[in-house]
């Protein structure tokens, strides 16, 4: 059963259609990259998957025991955040807030989970460092550790390598592949970094308000990429 099933989803803002009749599914262990130009509706689609915007028609079904509070999300950073006075530990631990239920404070299990995820992303040494003094790549790792505190099943990444230098971007993709391969975390990534993003992907979705392409990455490479080139030429 799929983790998230999008069924004929249409999203509109003030009468302008941003996402037009989109249907696809994300299965456990998938690695899906959503590509598209600026304004193609790919970020809106992701916000809908997260429940941040309501579709005008169609339905979004969470399955396989996935609940709203079991999604990990790596949003694009805001300017306010880059300069935020908080330690890496505080940031990572804040990912556990959605599991607190009726509790007021984090407990030992939460703190252990945060420790594990910091170790997994190799930032245990930065634990007491301030978030605002980290490099872009380190900040992304801290946010990823936080997202992993919120989920074991599904990570949604919104343009994760924007603002990273090529080496840091490469490292980041390696971390994501590791999470996907060895830990079975399903990954959905919105990107316009064509080359790097689809390197490890299993499936590709190309958005242009509607769905231009959805399928395995091999099909995308052999068919769609050529077609896109020839139609432009």
């Amino acid at each position, binding site marked *: 059963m799929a983790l998230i099933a999008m069924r004929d989803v249409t999203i509109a803002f003030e009468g302008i259609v941003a996402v037009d009749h989109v249907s696809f599914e994300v299965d456990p262990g998938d690695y899906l990259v959503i590509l598209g130009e600026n304004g193609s509706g790919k970020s809106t689609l992701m916000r809908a998957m*997260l*429940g*941040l915007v309501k579709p005008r028609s169609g339905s979004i079904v969470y399955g396989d025991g996935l*609940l*709203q*509070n*079991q*999604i*990990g*999300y790596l*949003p694009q950073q805001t300017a*306010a*955040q880059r300069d*935020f*006075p*908080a*330690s890496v530990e*505080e*940031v990572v*631990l*804040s*990912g556990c*807030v*959605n599991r*607190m239920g009726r509790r*007021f*404070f*984090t407990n030992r299990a939460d703190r252990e989970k945060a420790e594990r995820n910091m170790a997994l992303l190799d930032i245990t040494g930065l634990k*007491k460092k*301030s978030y*605002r*003094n980290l490099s872009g790549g380190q900040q992304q790792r801290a946010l990823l550790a*936080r*997202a992993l505190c*919120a*989920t074991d099943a599904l990570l*949604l990444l919104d343009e994760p390598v924007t603002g990273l230098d090529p080496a840091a971007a490469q490292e980041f993709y390696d971390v994501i592949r590791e999470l996907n391969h060895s830990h079975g975390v399903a990954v959905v990534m919105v990107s316009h970094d064509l080359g790097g993003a689809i390197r490890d992907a299993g499936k590709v979705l190309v958005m242009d308000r509607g769905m231009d392409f959805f399928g395995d990455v091999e099909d995308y490479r052999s068919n769609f990429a050529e077609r896109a080139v020839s139609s432009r030429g």
Partner: protein
Amino acid sequence: MGDLLAKLLTRRQDREGGRRRGGAVALWAILALIVLWVLTHLGAIGQAFAAFGGYLQYRFIQRALVVGALVSLCASLLGVTLVLKRYSMIGDGLSHVGFGSLTVAMSLGFVTADSLPRFLPGGLRDGVAALCSGIAANPLPFTLVVVVVCAFLLLRISERSSMRGDSAIALISTSALAVGVIVTSMTSGMNVDVYNYMFGSILAMSSSDVYISVGLSVVVLVLFMLFYPRIFAVTFDEAFARATGVKAGTYNMLIALLTAMTVVVGMRMMGTLLISSLIIFPALSSMRLFSHFRAVTICSAIVSVGCFLLGMMLSCVYSLPTGAGIVAVNLVVFIAFSAIGAIRQ
């Protein structure tokens, strides 16, 4: 050629290093001057403390100290969140709304049964008149309700509408101030009471005000501590919190509610025009020195209460307006912290 370039580069670095060192020397010099001034005026400072000790026996000073310390604590804790969420002006906006509703509440004292329209039944007219005079006699609960409603309204507007948050705040706060001024000039005129609302007075608090203030402050403190992890999550990254199933809207409401309560309680003493400084200054000062959220929060609480006590002392001993004194002390601390922060870098 390469040698020359390398030499030029190192010299440039030297010069930059030198400039930075020069800045540090200047800052240390300022700090040293401050310390020197304190040391040479120890006698006068001791006298001031002694004089302040004499004031402590008065009931109204005791009241002001208790309420002021609690309000400073609440304001500083909320301030960290508000400043980081870029909501610092909400405190300012709400205090103006508070002023408007205080003047309206006071003017209700002029309503009598005879002044109400004749077609209403006599019993209703008496009831309304009694309610109005009740509100005028004890305006704090009325003000609290109005300010809380406005806090929700402000939050709604800045979240949903196309108008930007800061414009919405300016709109509401100036309108409330205008209503306050119009109502005042139509009823009592600009008197000492109104002046006190604007600039604050430690004499303004009645004993029932003290009970309300202490109660509200305790509620603010307890709620802030209980929801601290959630408040941090929503402050750091609202989109993430929302996406992972945390009810961010509810916690925004909670923050707005707590801010409204703090503003209403602190308004009488600090004055409408100065209360927002109590929210903003301690948080900004501590962010100069600390870079962990918990450290910033704790430091801001200590700074806030410390500045309040010192400002209060200055106000008593040199008969300065309380609110202005506290703001002045906060400003000095902010400058000192900025200097220390700059040196440390």
